[in-house]
């Protein structure tokens, strides 16, 4: 119960401070367009990183298909928002509802995928999640969904069979994804989503559910031996993680006027995993920082022109080496010792 509250407050403090600073800068016009444009994606990536950290760092299972859940939330949430355009005129409320719907569908996808996947362990689980991520991508690439006053019309592979009323419109057009999305995502909405995510994760970790989940991570056999139902708790963590990714997807998609399934491919899954690993497994504050910095970094490197992705990769390698070097670790130990030596790992 007394578990490392400092780190929790640091996370909340960081987010609130960053939000306040950005709002002030933005209201006084001191912020660049670049930065302004990245605020929503940064929020979405932070939520993605926290959400994947729940699976990888806290549950201890490697998932390589997390972008699939983001995709699920992006498509369902955005479709819902388009359908609600007229019935819910308040954009903030509509965005909120679409994120809830994204989260629900993300969670459902997590549950369905979890049934076969959570029977597996370690590497096998990672490979299967990867495959599921690709399956979700392929489904959306071949899904055609139209909407008119008679309801939804769904078809796979081709839109030929979909006959819409005059007032109806196509929502998802296969590989072309969703076009003409109303850009209703805002930084404030992203901020609220992060705060909610943090509440959920920290409250989960400090409850009996979180304890059981971490116990499974630390020693599955021992967890079973004290009566922990491994499948149930793994599923709980996995579904919550997928639902958060779904909400982040809905936020992300509605920051752009167009979204395609190919955006949420294997590369995106790996990018999110990089955010988590760089921030530290199980370290929520770390995830927040690394998601922010790694989203900004490629933009900050635009000065390197075509070499920027190379420089980006080099910076990434250097940072990984640096944070893992024994010299740094000794230095960190010393500094920790100096500041009262908080014994706990910088987790959570």
């Amino acid at each position: 119960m007394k578990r490392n509250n400092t780190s929790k407050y640091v996370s909340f403090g960081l987010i609130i401070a960053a939000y306040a600073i950005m709002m002030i800068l933005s209201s006084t016009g001191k912020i660049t367009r670049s930065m302004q444009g990245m605020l929503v994606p940064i929020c979405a990536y932070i939520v993605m990183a926290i959400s994947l950290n729940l699976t990888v760092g806290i549950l201890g299972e490697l998932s390589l298909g997390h972008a699939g859940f983001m995709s699920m939330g992006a498509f369902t949430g955005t479709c819902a928002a388009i359908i609600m355009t007229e019935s819910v005129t308040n954009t903030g409320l509509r965005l909120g509802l679409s994120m809830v719907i994204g989260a629900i569908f993300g969670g459902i996808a997590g549950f369905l995928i979890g049934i076969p996947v959570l029977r597996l362990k370690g590497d096998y689980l990672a490979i299967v999640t990867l495959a599921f991520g690709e399956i979700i991508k392929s489904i959306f690439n071949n899904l055609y969904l139209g909407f008119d006053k008679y309801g939804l019309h769904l078809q796979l592979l081709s839109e030929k069979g979909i006959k819409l009323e005059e007032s109806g419109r196509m929502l998802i057009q296969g590989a072309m994804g969703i076009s003409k999305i109303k850009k209703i995502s805002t930084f404030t909405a992203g901020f609220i989503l992060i705060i909610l995510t943090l509440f959920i994760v920290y409250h989960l970790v400090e409850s009996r559910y979180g304890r059981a989940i971490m116990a499974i991570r630390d020693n599955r056999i021992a967890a079973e031996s004290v009566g922990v139902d491994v499948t149930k708790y793994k599923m709980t963590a996995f579904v919550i993680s997928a639902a958060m990714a779904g909400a982040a997807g809905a936020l992300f998609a509605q920051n752009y006027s167009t979204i395609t399934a190919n955006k949420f491919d294997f590369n995106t899954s790996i990018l999110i995993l990089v955010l988590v690993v760089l921030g530290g497994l199980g370290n929520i504050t770390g995830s927040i920082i690394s998601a922010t910095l790694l989203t900004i970094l490629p933009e900050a490197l635009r000065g390197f022109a075509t070499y920027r992705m190379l420089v980006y990769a080099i910076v990434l390698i250097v940072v990984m080496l640096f944070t893992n070097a024994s010299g740094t670790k000794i230095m960190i130990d010393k500094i920790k010792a100096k500041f009262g030596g908080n014994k706990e790992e910088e987790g959570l």
Partner: protein
Amino acid sequence: MNKKLFSVVLAVLMMAVCVSGVMAQDTIKIGGTGPLTGGAAIYGNAVANAAAIAIDEINALGGQQYELRYEDDAHDAEKAVNAFNALLDWGMQVSMSSVTSKPAEATSELNMEERVFGMTPSASSTAVIEGKDNVLQMCFTDPNQGSASAAYIANNDLADKVAVIWKNDDVYSKGIYDTFMAEAEELGLEVVSDTTFSDGNDTDFSVQIADAQEKGAELVFLPMYYTPASLILAQADAAGYDPIFFGVDGMDGILTMEGFDASLAEGVILLTPFNADSEDEKTAAFVAKYLELYGEIPNQFAADGYDVVYALVGAMEEAGVTADMSAEEINDALIETFETFTFDGVTGENMTWSDGAVNKDPKGMIIQDGAYVGLD
């Protein structure tokens, strides 16, 4: 703590992003985004290179000076929006939108919102121009390419039985396919084989080729970019199948592709408005210059990029745009000018624009002796 150090290093970089510097200027700033890296880099670089040539030529004349900046979007909508915002920070007054369709769909939205006039060289999706009063296309829209291809095949009696291989997770390919099929039906072309591929399974086309061969297709329509097309050509050759291959503007560039045996492309027909072999003086000069600077024959993307710069500059001169005008003022002036503006460029003559789409004639081209030759 490691996070702290990490953040210090990167915070410095971050400041660079955050601090905007606006300086007095006497040049007009033109910006564009395109894939300068990644799988679609050949298009982005072609456009950026050709645009740079055009800007240099215009500046050399001594009149109003222009400044060009291309930012990388890696063919990704999210990155394109970032790139576009970076250009706004730089002080872009006129935009060349984005090179490829999906990124352009996202950035054209910003053109509209921010009231920055934009003209895309090659983003052919209709969503780029739909509902926007200040975004124009230099290329045909995808649907136009599809219907024009079908019409060309039918009108020139190239074949009766046609096969189509298309990429079903690609906006560009699908857009052309849809209208091609509609027009083919109209004109009585018989599509005997209709096969697809997608990202990830785009290296082995033996099934698709065998299907076309079996059904006796005399012509294979390939609405796709040149990378998969090059494989189809090679694999069809290996299978001993030699129909007419008919491509679209994405096929352009196949001759300069590294590691591709150009002789395989002999006889391929493609519908593209640009003909590098043209006797036309303007075209010859452009091709020579491009060849000199970049060591290759410019493809259609380059030609589109070159034309966009000349069209924008021409219209700005006509509208009397000066460097001290804001992007919005230039935008309003250009919207008005383009209502009546006509343009002669390397990709066509007497071009006009209506609702953002260009009106010009496509040219049929055939590859002969390793070069594009006009069919007319």
